[in-house]
């Protein structure tokens, strides 16, 4: 009894706003075990990536001689070989184009729709909201067969535009809900003031709301960038011409073509993963915020 009271007192003196979890009752052995478990677990999660990084610098002979060993002398040329024919760069360019256009379209439409959900009350609005929620649970592959037929009829099969359209549609519902969650935190009076000011609805939205919504739009853009950049299913089914393929799709072709030179292959995989990793490392807080709001809204 006394000992726990002491803990509590200490906790109160140590509790500084903004710090969490500090000043807990100490548990030396317990914490040590937790450190140990996390260290082992994180090693399993991360080791394949580290292994990829150092193995990509081996010669093929070294690689086949022993998978675990470090490279004896670094073969940086593997990266030159991986990039050599320029295919990876073409794939990356396609991924970039598809991602930029899809994200821009999604964020623009999601912002407008999220604003409408919060601002206007009409009889049919709840129906639209419910269908958005339902749409989130629908797996994209269910729509694949008809999508291919529709896009073929429209002459958009095997075009990058043909990938953008369904990609945007399937990412819209979550994006709309993220934006709606943001707009519901904007004081109602601000919305009213902007509208009463004599400005048209569209101008009130563009001049007042969009500038305030920028951080939420950025968050939405980040999650969408991750989803679209990494997406595999739509490009796999909708693209056929090698020069139009995206990075994840092109990479699977690349692997098929170079089955024997493993370190070069690993260099290619690393290069393909590098973009996402750099963006994540640079914008960690935004990426984490984006993933959190993107997931919770589901």
């Amino acid at each position, binding site marked *: 009894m006394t000992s726990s009271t002491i803990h509590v007192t200490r906790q109160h003196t140590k509790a500084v706003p903004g710090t969490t979890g500090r000043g807990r009752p100490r548990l030396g052995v317990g914490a040590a075990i937790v*450190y140990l478990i996390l260290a082992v677990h994180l090693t399993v*999660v991360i080791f394949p990536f580290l292994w990829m990084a150092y193995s990509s610098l081996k010669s093929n002979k070294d690689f086949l001689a022993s998978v675990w060993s470090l490279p004896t002398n670094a073969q940086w040329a593997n990266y030159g070989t991986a990039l050599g024919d320029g295919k990876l760069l073409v794939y990356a360019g396609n991924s970039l184009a598809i991602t930029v256009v899809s994200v821009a379209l999604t964020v*623009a439409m999601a912002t407008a729709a999220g604003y409408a959900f919060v601002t206007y009350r009409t009889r049919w609005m709840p129906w639209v909201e419910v269908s958005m929620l339902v749409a989130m649970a629908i797996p994209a592959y269910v*729509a*694949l067969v008809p999508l291919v037929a529709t896009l073929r009829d429209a002459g958009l099969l095997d075009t990058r535009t043909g990938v953008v359209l369904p990609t945007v549609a399937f990412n819209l519902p979550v994006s709309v809900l993220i934006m709606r969650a943001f707009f519901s935190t904007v004081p109602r009076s601000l919305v009213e003031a902007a509208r009463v000011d004599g400005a048209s609805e569209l101008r009130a939205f563009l001049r007042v709301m969009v500038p305030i919504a920028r951080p939420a739009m950025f968050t939405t853009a980040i999650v969408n960038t991750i989803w679209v950049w990494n997406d*595999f299913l739509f490009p796999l089914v909708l693209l056929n011409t090698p020069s139009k393929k995206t990075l*994840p799709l092109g990479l699977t072709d690349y692997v098929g073509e170079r089955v024997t030179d493993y370190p070069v292959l690993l260099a290619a995989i690393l290069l393909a993963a590098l973009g996402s990793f750099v963006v994540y490392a640079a914008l960690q807080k935004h990426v984490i915020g984006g993933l959190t709001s993107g997931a919770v809204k589901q």
Partner: protein
Amino acid sequence: MSTSTRSRAVRRDARAALLFLAPAVLFLAAFVAYPLLTAGVLSFHSWDGVSPRQWTGLANYERLLGDRIFWGSLRNNILVALTAIVFQVGVGMVIAYWLVRVVPRIKRFAMFLYVVPVVISEICIGLLWGFVYNPYFGLLNGFLNAVGLDELARGWLGDRSTAMPAVLVVMNLTYLGLYILLFVAAFENVDKAVYDAAAIDGAGHYRTFFSVSVPMVWSNVQATTLLAVVSSFKTFSLVYVLTRGGPNNATDVVSTYLFQTGFGNFEAGYASTIGFVQILLTAAVGVFVLGLMRRGKRGAA
């Protein structure tokens, strides 16, 4: 005056709402709703994807009932969902609690590492794990040989008995980071005073976790469980890149089986049937899970 002003305001609202919602709604109608309805119609047809389709009534549905590969795929989807609930939601909750309450010093660093596989494309991850499981020079076999367990070494993804567990390990390690992240956010939202009260009661971490933390974030537990189930039924890329559903359909999930049926065997009608039934099943499972969790909450309270 007030009536006419109000009705004018209502009309203005409806017009503006239409304007703001139209682009999103049109996109959803054209590329989600329309294909789904078409899939429903196609599910009653025999079609190779190109030539004129033929109405076959319920033939596809009858075939589905007796289709062992389909039910096997569905069983695998359910396995994915169940392991996700344990190893992503459950383990994620425990690790998040540790990071927030026990070892907050490494919280940021550990979260950074756990999220790395979440942001990297599943194709890169899958190709990489292909190297781990490779029968000839794989990391796993190399490790087993090094510690003298040679007889356990095998082609992990080529062996019917180990292929699905091997795929599940990759999935659960890859997506775990997302759940850690969600629960760290949830636990940090819990009022510190609640923990102080638990400490006064002399509750250790074990009891604090089960009788304070988990009940406090129960709505998050529900939401993330639903997320895990829904995502499990959407899964495609990792399975595709690791095994393409093989060996002998042992690792097929509904998505890979649908892909093979529609775009490998050109049975567009039957593929649509698979997809359509899949939607109904996902909806049923979602409702079932939510129902279970409501009861679980009442039991816990």
